[in-house]
C-alpha cells in the first residue's frame, strides 16, 4: 500500500506544511483507497471531484501561507451531517434523494480549516444501532477478521462506516456522532481512536437529529493526537445551536504532554459486569497498571446507578427520536408513498421509509410519551438521569478521569447478531452513562483478544475537560503501543 496512506493526520499535516507532499498527491492516494475499500461498503456516496477541487485549493493556500489547521487533509463525513448539494441519507430510505441546500456547522468548520471531503460514510439508520446492520444501504464490514476465520464481522455502530474507513486507511480521519456510544464503540471494534466531546462542545446544527439531549459530534482517527487536532477544528460556539456552549476552544494538541504524574484515575466497581470476557477484565487491569506506572494515582470509585443507565437511555432516546423523526412525513423532502388521505400518505410513507429498528424506537418513544404513561416512564427516566449525573459529580470529587473498558466484547459476526433487541442494546453498557451525563469520553485501542481482534479502553472526564481526557488517553496509547493492523487495508 501507498506510504502516503500510512501517515497519521499529524504527520500528513506536517509534511504538507513542509511542502514534502502536496494535498493533490495525498488526496489522489485516498481517492484510490476509497475505491479499493468498496468491498467494506463504508461509503454511501463518494465525492472524488469535490475532493480534487478542495485539494487544489488547499495547495494554493499552503503556497500562499494561509493554510488552516487541517489544510489538505482528506476526511470522510458520516452521512448524518448535512452537506450542501451532496446526497445526505442518514442511512434511511425515507431520505431518498435528499440534497441539503445548506452545510452542517461541524462540516463547515472542517471545510474552513482546509479539510478535503472524500465522501459520505455509511451508518446505522438515523444512527440507531450498534453494529451498522440497520442501514438502508447495507451492512458495513469490519476490516478486521478473527485469526484463521473468514467470517465477516460488524464494525460496531452507529458510526460504523467512519470506523471501518479510518481503520482500513480509506480516509485520514472521519466525523462521527455519539448518542449512546456511536463513536466510542465502533472505534473500539476497529482498533481506532474515537472521542465523544462534552455535550455542547460541537454544534449540532445541520446534523440529522436522533436524540437531541444526547447527540454529540466528534472525531474518529488513528491516534489520540489526530483526534485532538480534529476536535480543535470541529468544536466551537454556534449561534444556530442554542445548546452549543460559548467558551473558548483550547489547543487540544498542547494538552498531550505525556505527563500523567499525580493524575487521579477513578476505577468504578460497577463496570465489572456479569459475563464480561476475562480478556476485557484483564485489559482493564492492564490499563490500570499502565497508568499507575506512568505516575497516576488509582482511586476506587462508585457509580451506583450504572445499571440503570441503559434502561433510562432506552426511554429518553426513543422519546426524543419519536419527536425528532415526526418531520419525515413525505411532504417536504425524501420519500413519499401515495395515500388517499393525508394521514394515509403519512402512514404509508413512514411505514415504507423507516426500517424495523427505527420503527421500534419511534413506537417505544410514542408509547412512553403517551397519556397515562408519561410520568411512569419518561419522567421517571429523566429523574434517574439526574441520579446518574450526580454519581459522576460525586466521583469527580475524588478523581480527575475514569478508566473503564470501552465495550463488553470484541466485534461479532454480521450473522451472529442477537435476535433480541435488548441483547443488542447491551453493547453500549459502558458508553451510555457519559451521554446521559453529557460528559466527554475517549476510546483508545489498547489490546488484542485471543482471536486477534482489537479491544479498547475508555477514559471519561469532567464536563469540558477534553484536555485531561486526551492527555490520559495519550498516556494509555503510549503505554499500549498498539501497532496491530486490520487484515483489510485499502490501497
Amino acid at each position, binding site marked *: 500500500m501507498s506510504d502516503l496512506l500510512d501517515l497519521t493526520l499529524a504527520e500528513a499535516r506536517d509534511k504538507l506544511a513542509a511542502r514534502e507532499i502536496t494535498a493533490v498527491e495525498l488526496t489522489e492516494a485516498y481517492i484510490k483507497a476509497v475505491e479499493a475499500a468498496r468491498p467494506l461498503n463504508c461509503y454511501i456516496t463518494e465525492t472524488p471531484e469535490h475532493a480534487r477541487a478542495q485539494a487544489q485549493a488547499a495547495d494554493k493556500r499552503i503556497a500562499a501561507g494561509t493554510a488552516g489547521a487541517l489544510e489538505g487533509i482528506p476526511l470522510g463525513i458520516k452521512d448524518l451531517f448535512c452537506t450542501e448539494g451532496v446526497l445526505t441519507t442518514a442511512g434511511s430510505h425515507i431520505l431518498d*434523494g*435528499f*440534497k*441539503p*441546500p445548506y452545510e452542517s456547522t461541524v462540516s463547515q468548520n472542517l471545510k474552513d480549516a482546509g479539510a478535503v471531503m472524500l465522501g459520505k460514510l455509511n451508518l446505522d439508520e438515523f444512527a440507531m444501532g450498534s453494529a451498522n446492520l440497520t442501514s438502508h444501504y447495507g451492512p458495513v464490514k469490519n476490516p478486521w477478521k478473527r485469526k484463521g476465520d473468514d467470517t465477516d464481522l460488524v464494525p460496531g455502530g452507529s458510526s460504523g462506516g467512519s470506523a471501518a474507513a479510518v481503520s482500513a486507511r480509506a480516509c485520514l480521519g472521519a466525523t462521527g456522532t455519539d448518542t449512546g456510544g456511536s463513536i466510542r464503540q465502533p472505534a473500539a471494534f476497529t482498533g481506532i481512536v474515537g472521542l465523544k466531546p*462534552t*455535550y*455542547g462542545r460541537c454544534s449540532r446544527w445541520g446534523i440529522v437529529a436522533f436524540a437531541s*439531549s*444526547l447527540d454529540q459530534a466528534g472525531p474518529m482517527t488513528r491516534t489520540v493526537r489526530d483526534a485532538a487536532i480534529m476536535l480543535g477544528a470541529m468544536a466551537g460556539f454556534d*449561534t444556530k445551536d*442554542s*445548546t452549543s*456552549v460559548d467558551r473558548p476552544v483550547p489547543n487540544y494538541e498542547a494538552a498531550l504532554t505525556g505527563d500523567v504524574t499525580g493524575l487521579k484515575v477513578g476505577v468504578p466497581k460497577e463496570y465489572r459486569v456479569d459475563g464480561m470476557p476475562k480478556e476485557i477484565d484483564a485489559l482493564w487491569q492492564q490499563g490500570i497498571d499502565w497508568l499507575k506506572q506512568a505516575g497516576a494515582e488509582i482511586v476506587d470509585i462508585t457509580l451506583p*446507578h450504572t*445499571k*440503570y443507565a441503559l*434502561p*433510562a437511555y*432506552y*426511554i429518553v432516546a426513543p422519546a426524543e427520536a419519536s419527536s425528532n423523526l415526526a418531520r419525515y*412525513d413525505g*411532504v*417536504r*423532502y*425524501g420519500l413519499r408513498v401515495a395515500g*388517499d*388521505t*393525508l*394521514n*394515509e*400518505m403519512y*402512514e404509508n410513507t*413512514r*411505514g415504507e421509509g*423507516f426500517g424495523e429498528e427505527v*420503527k*421500534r424506537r*419511534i*413506537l*417505544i418513544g*410514542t*408509547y412512553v410519551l*403517551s397519556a397515562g404513561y408519561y410520568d*411512569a*416512564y419518561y419522567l*421517571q*427516566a*429523566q*429523574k*434517574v*438521569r*439526574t*441520579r446518574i449525573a450526580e454519581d459522576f459529580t460525586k466521583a469527580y470529587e475524588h478523581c480527575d478521569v475514569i478508566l473503564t473498558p470501552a465495550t463488553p466484547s470484541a466485534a461479532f459476526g454480521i450473522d451472529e447478531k442477537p435476535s433480541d*433487541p*435488548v441483547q443488542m442494546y447491551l453493547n453500549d453498557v459502558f458508553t451510555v452513562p457519559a451521554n*446521559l*451525563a*453529557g460528559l466527554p469520553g475517549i476510546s483508545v485501542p489498547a489490546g488484542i483478544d485471543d482471536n486477534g481482534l482489537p479491544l479498547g479502553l475508555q477514559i471519561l472526564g469532567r*464536563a469540558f475537560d477534553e484536555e485531561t481526557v486526551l492527555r490520559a488517553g495519550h498516556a494509555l496509547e503510549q503505554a499500549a503501543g498498539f501497532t496491530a493492523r486490520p487484515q483489510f487495508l485499502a490501497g
Partner: protein
Amino acid sequence: MALDKQTVAKVAHLARIKVPEDRLETLAGELDGIVNWVEQLGEVDVEGVAPMTSAVATSLPWREDAVTDGGYPDKVTANAPDAQMNFFTTPKVVE
C-alpha cells in the same frame, strides 16, 4: 402491563406508521420485552429528585427576535417530492 396487539396498533397510528396486521404480533412481543426491561427504573429512589432536562449546566442564550434568514422558497422546496409553484403539496385535506 403487557403491550398487546391492540396497543401497538394504537401507538402505530399515533406515530403515523403503517404496520401490516401480520407484523403486529411480533412487534408487540419485541416492544413488550423492551418495556418490561426498562421497568426496572421503578426500583430507583427518586424522592425529591428533579428531572434532568439539560445535559449541561448552562443557561440558554438570548438573541434578538429578528428575521435572519429566508427569501428563497425555491431552495426550501427543492427537495420536496411534489412541490408546485414554491408550495408543498399534500393530498386534499379540505373538501
